[in-house]
């Protein structure tokens, strides 16, 4: 440290001499203008605010959407259960209509009778296997269907 500067620095020291521009000048010090940053503050603030608000709004939107979807999911779940019940009911109705008892009942109502004597027609040589017999009403073993 140069002696002059040491003196200048010591100015506020124990001796507490008054500030004198001459002494400063002698020490090579001078007043300078405050440094002004070249970057402007406004864009930075805008960016930060934007990011924050986008994040906040996004969070709110996402949370709302998820919540809404959760309600929707629950609604759809109960709807699925409802439809499953309905499907079971319809399957059951189809099963009942397809059941041998129902088919037989309707066939008998149409005047059809079960075959009493099995016979086959062999397509390769058009030969009749077995002794075919016409199934006639009265010539049958099942006349009605017991429910």
């Amino acid at each position, binding site marked *: 440290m140069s002696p002059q500067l040491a003196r200048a620095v010591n100015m506020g020291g124990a001796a507490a001499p008054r500030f004198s521009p001459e002494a400063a000048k002698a020490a090579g010090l001078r007043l300078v203008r405050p440094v002004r940053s070249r970057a402007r503050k406004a864009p930075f603030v805008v960016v930060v605010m934007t990011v924050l608000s986008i994040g906040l709004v996004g969070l709110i939107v996402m949370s709302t959407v*998820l*919540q809404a*979807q*959760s*309600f929707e*999911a*629950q609604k759809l779940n109960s709807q699925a*259960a409802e439809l*499953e*019940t*309905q499907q*079971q*009911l319809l399957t*059951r109705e189809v*099963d*009942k209509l397809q*059941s*041998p*008892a129902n088919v*037989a009942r309707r066939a008998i109502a149409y005047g059809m009778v*079960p*075959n*009493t*004597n*099995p*016979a*086959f027609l*062999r397509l390769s040589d058009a030969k009749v*296997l*077995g*002794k075919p*017999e016409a199934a006639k009403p009265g010539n049958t*073993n*099942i006349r009605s*269907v*017991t429910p």
Partner: protein
Amino acid sequence: MSASKTVSRRRLRVCLAMIVGVFSVFGVRLFQIQGLDASAYAAQAIADGTNKSTVPAPRGDILDRNGAELATSVDGMTLTADPKMTSADAPQIARILRQELGSRIDYFDTIDKLRTPDSRFVYLIRDVPAWTGKKALTAIAKANLTGVFSEKETLRTYPGGKLAANLLGYVNGTGKGVAGIEQEYNKTLTGTDGASTYEVDPNTGVRIPMADSTVTAMVPGRDVTTTIDRDLQWYADQRLADAVRESSSDWGLAITMDTKTCQIVQMSQAPTFNADDGTGMADSNTVSRAVQNVYEPGSVMKTVTMAALADQGKIASDTPIVVPSGMDIDGFHIGDYWEHGTIHLTAAGVIAKSSNLGTIVASQQMSNTTMYNYFRRFGFGQMSGVNLPGESDGILKNGKDWTKANHATIAFGQGVSVTALQMVRAVGAIANAGKMCEPSVVSSTTGADGKQVKIPAAPSKRVVSKDAAATVTRMMEAVTAPDGTAPAAAIKGYRVAGKTGTAWRVDPATGRYIRGQNTVSFMGFAPADNPRFLTYIVLDKPYSNAGGGSTAGPVFHDIMSMALERFGVAPTGSKSPKVAQTW
């Protein structure tokens, strides 16, 4: 001035004391909640905020051989009520329930239940299909009535109603199989319940998105595929039920088995029950008679006696037998069902005419031990291996303890008790050229992943030679001939081998035979020269003069015809050899 200063100071103190007091109370309460009961409150908060639920595994279906559903599960409901809320409107609620649920519910009973005093919970009806239950609840809500609630459950249904009921069995109130295939394959049919836990909003119960959740996967029960043909089963059920009614029998059985594979394609019982709507659930209907009911088979057993003799080379279909007019053995008089003097029948004639005396004469060529051993080989006194619950062994006394009368009567099927399935297995061996297999009713199980696991058939074993089986088959063909005991069992165009049975019934109380009470039966297979199906009909205690050929024979004819037709078994076209019945 100084007096007002004193008043305000006192007021200040009082206020301070009050504030201190209030905050002390808050502090103590805070300490209690946070310090002492903290874990309890935390647990309650978690409980309020999480939803635990079991995911019930659906029970597997029972299917017929073509995949048609014989038993399946649907969503069910139990309706409950809070009598405190319903007692005032009981008649209106009961009327709506009766309208929606029909005969499942009794109007007056329901009113009583809805008015149960000092109760806040009653069951109104269990096991209703969800669609019916929901309809009833909607109707109640529409009428602005309250106090009826529902609980979810799984409901077992049988789309065929009574179809194959005794074979399928049923489930109890907790969904566990307690009879038939439902019981035997209960473990396979029952899956493993899953569980799920997730966080919910304590107020709305709505699931919180992306919050913690744990799920234990549910494993559905496996489907069981039976060997039953649904349509044939229905036909047999119907035909048998008609026969039981017409002959006023106590009960009847009809079993059809594929003789090549020993798969049961139809197993009917009448009277039976309907597990779908819960009617006819008496023990006498729900018992599976094919495996649980023992009875004396009568003359059908003669085929087994003849097979044993033929296997030893001691008889052929034309072996001459002198049949006396009667026999007295150990003080018992044994005769034939028709009066005759001494007659000359061939072995085929003995079977065709079903002569007890002829059978005794022929069987005298075997010692007790030999005959007993043959009967054991034919599976009597041992379970049939069909894998159905509650199966009986039947009763076959050890050959060492046989009296002369035992030897004589067992030869024609009295003094020996069997199950119908044992009888089917034994004669099945004759149809299957002397090789006996174990009857089966289930062919495979299928998981939810669609992977099928076949259930292997037990290996068949030879019980008599091929020639012996052929000899007995020829004798049995004479039974369905026009001069045999069961011409009604013949199927035009086919060669049918068969045997009638008319056995005396044993009174279970006294162990004695009851005069005039019989168990009539018919066992037969076709085509006789290349057997594919065997059908056995049993009618217990029909009207007194019913015989195996005349009563069970026509039922056999119809069910067998249907089996041959459904499975496309064409007649072989060969002619039955003429076998002399007399000499």
